[in-house]
């Protein structure tokens, strides 16, 4: 069991009469990159929101590094080592990129914040450069392209020093070249021991990145396994094309 970094058991979430996620379970091994696939509206983002604590599950539990974090508020999950990016980037509109990233490094204590224990700007800039934002650090979000905004999202997630990052549709709306760059970047990070859960309906981009794929459809678990096997699975095909 010690090999499981995060384990989701029997997660269920209802919105009124609509069952968004139904008895959904999966886990991520240490050192693994997991793909979470499913057609539009199948509940992928809801699962992320549940894992991050933005939503409260109706039932089920979330276990991270052996601890039950189901009732943790979001910030405690982040402190424990989970970070996410948003499907639609949500930068702070009134802050330049570098301060936006620095926000993720501010300690969660009033006195600590006064003593300036946020990461110094040079180090923040390093994180930004790593994701390829060197030229954009002093820009405001309204001046950036979609690709750059996704990089900012990623930099913000990485700045919290996470053990696992939840990437929500990180490739949506990007050019092929941008996807390639991001892919490379994520691969590098993985080598340094970072774990991912990647949500995408873009199968091609997922392929080189993930070790294993979990498929969700109408909030229910459909299949799991290596990427190649999954794409040929009948139920998955049915979900995507039927």
């Amino acid at each position, binding site marked *: 069991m010690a090999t499981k970094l995060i384990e989701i058991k029997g997660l269920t979430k209802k919105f009124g009469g609509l069952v968004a996620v139904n008895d959904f379970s999966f886990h991520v091994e240490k050192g693994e990159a997991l793909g979470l696939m499913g057609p539009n509206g199948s509940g992928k983002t809801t699962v992320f929101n549940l894992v*991050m*604590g*933005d939503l409260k599950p109706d039932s089920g539990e979330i276990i991270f590094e052996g601890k039950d974090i189901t009732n943790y*508020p*979001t*910030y*405690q999950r*982040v*402190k424990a080592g989970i*970070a*996410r990016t*948003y499907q639609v980037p*949500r930068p*702070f*509109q*009134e*802050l*330049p990129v*570098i*301060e936006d990233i620095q*926000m*993720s490094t*501010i300690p*969660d*204590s*009033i006195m600590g*914040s*006064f003593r*300036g224990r*946020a990461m110094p*700007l*040079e180090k923040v*800039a390093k994180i930004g450069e790593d994701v390829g934002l*060197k030229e954009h*650090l*002093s820009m405001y979000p309204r001046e950036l392209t979609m690709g750059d905004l996704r990089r900012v999202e990623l930099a*913000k997630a990485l*700045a*919290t020093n996470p053990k696992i990052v939840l990437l929500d549709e990180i490739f949506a709306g990007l050019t092929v070249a941008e996807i390639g760059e991001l892919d490379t970047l994520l691969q590098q990070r993985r080598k340094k021991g970072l774990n991912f859960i990647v949500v995408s309906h873009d199968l091609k981009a997922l392929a080189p990145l993930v070790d294993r794929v979990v498929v969700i459809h109408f909030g229910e678990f459909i299949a799991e396994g290596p990427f190649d096997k999954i794409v040929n699975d009948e139920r998955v095909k049915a979900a995507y094309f039927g």
Partner: protein
Amino acid sequence: MIRRLRWWLIAIAVMCVLPLFVPLGFPVSVIRLLVMGSYLAIFAMSWDMMSGHTGYISFGHPFLIGLAGYVTAFLSHQEGFQPPHIVLPLAVTLPLGVAAAVGGGMLFFFPSMRVRGPYFALVSLAFMEILHRLIIAVRPEFTGGDRGLPNLPSVVMGAIPNYYLSLGLMFATAIGLWYVSRSNVGNVLKAIRMDEDVVEASGISTYRFKRFAFLLSAVTAGLGGVFYTHYLASINPRRAFSAILLLDIIISAVIGGMGTIVGPMFGGYFLTFILEYLRPYLFGQWRLLAYALVAIFMVIYKPKGFYGIAQDVASWFQTRKRRSAQYGY
């Protein structure tokens, strides 16, 4: 530290020497106005700490101010705390008033922070209205009913001593809040205004930071409230919970520039002066109408307020290159 505070020191120096010119013909009426302006500035900054920074727009700030004012008023007024008729000295009632504001804020306002946006504004307004009604209706002999409590003791007498008192309070509040606003705490609070969920997702307890902002706001509102009450030396429900005071506070903060502390401070003085400046020229209601028109114009066309205007001016001289140089990249 001195370098960062140099503008404050200059401002304090200028304001402190003003009364010295009174014997030379500097009008005392302006000193009086500055006292009123200082208190409005304190309230506006207090509002800004809670609402301008975190985006939880409070429509009930007079609740905190009025609560503090009423506690110190009915403990210290001539006939005393009924029925035992105990008259407490100001040294006791002032801190009790501040404590009441903090306590009332923490008991009533803070739990309301569970709801956001207009809902929070509504709840805070509701608290203000309920307190207003209760003060009139429940045991009027205790609160003075709708007549209020007149003839309260003063902390200091006269325009100039009151000027220094209000100025001291104002600058203490301003520098304190400005320091908070400039620190990482201020950044977190402003980020909460922009997108609270994302701040949570950065591993920061927004609850903790909001509570801190709220505490600061309540303390400053309470401080301002008790001294303001004793400066005016009377209190009554129509004044303590009036829509005019509420609007003055919000408009000062909005036209000064929300979330900047310096902006609302300026806004407080500006509003006090513009209202008095219009008095000789516009008859009665026309003056209030003109003031409301100016306010709505500012809100619609310059939502970032004077601070935003100042930034626009500054950005004329500051190209993006300079901006990058600021961060070294």
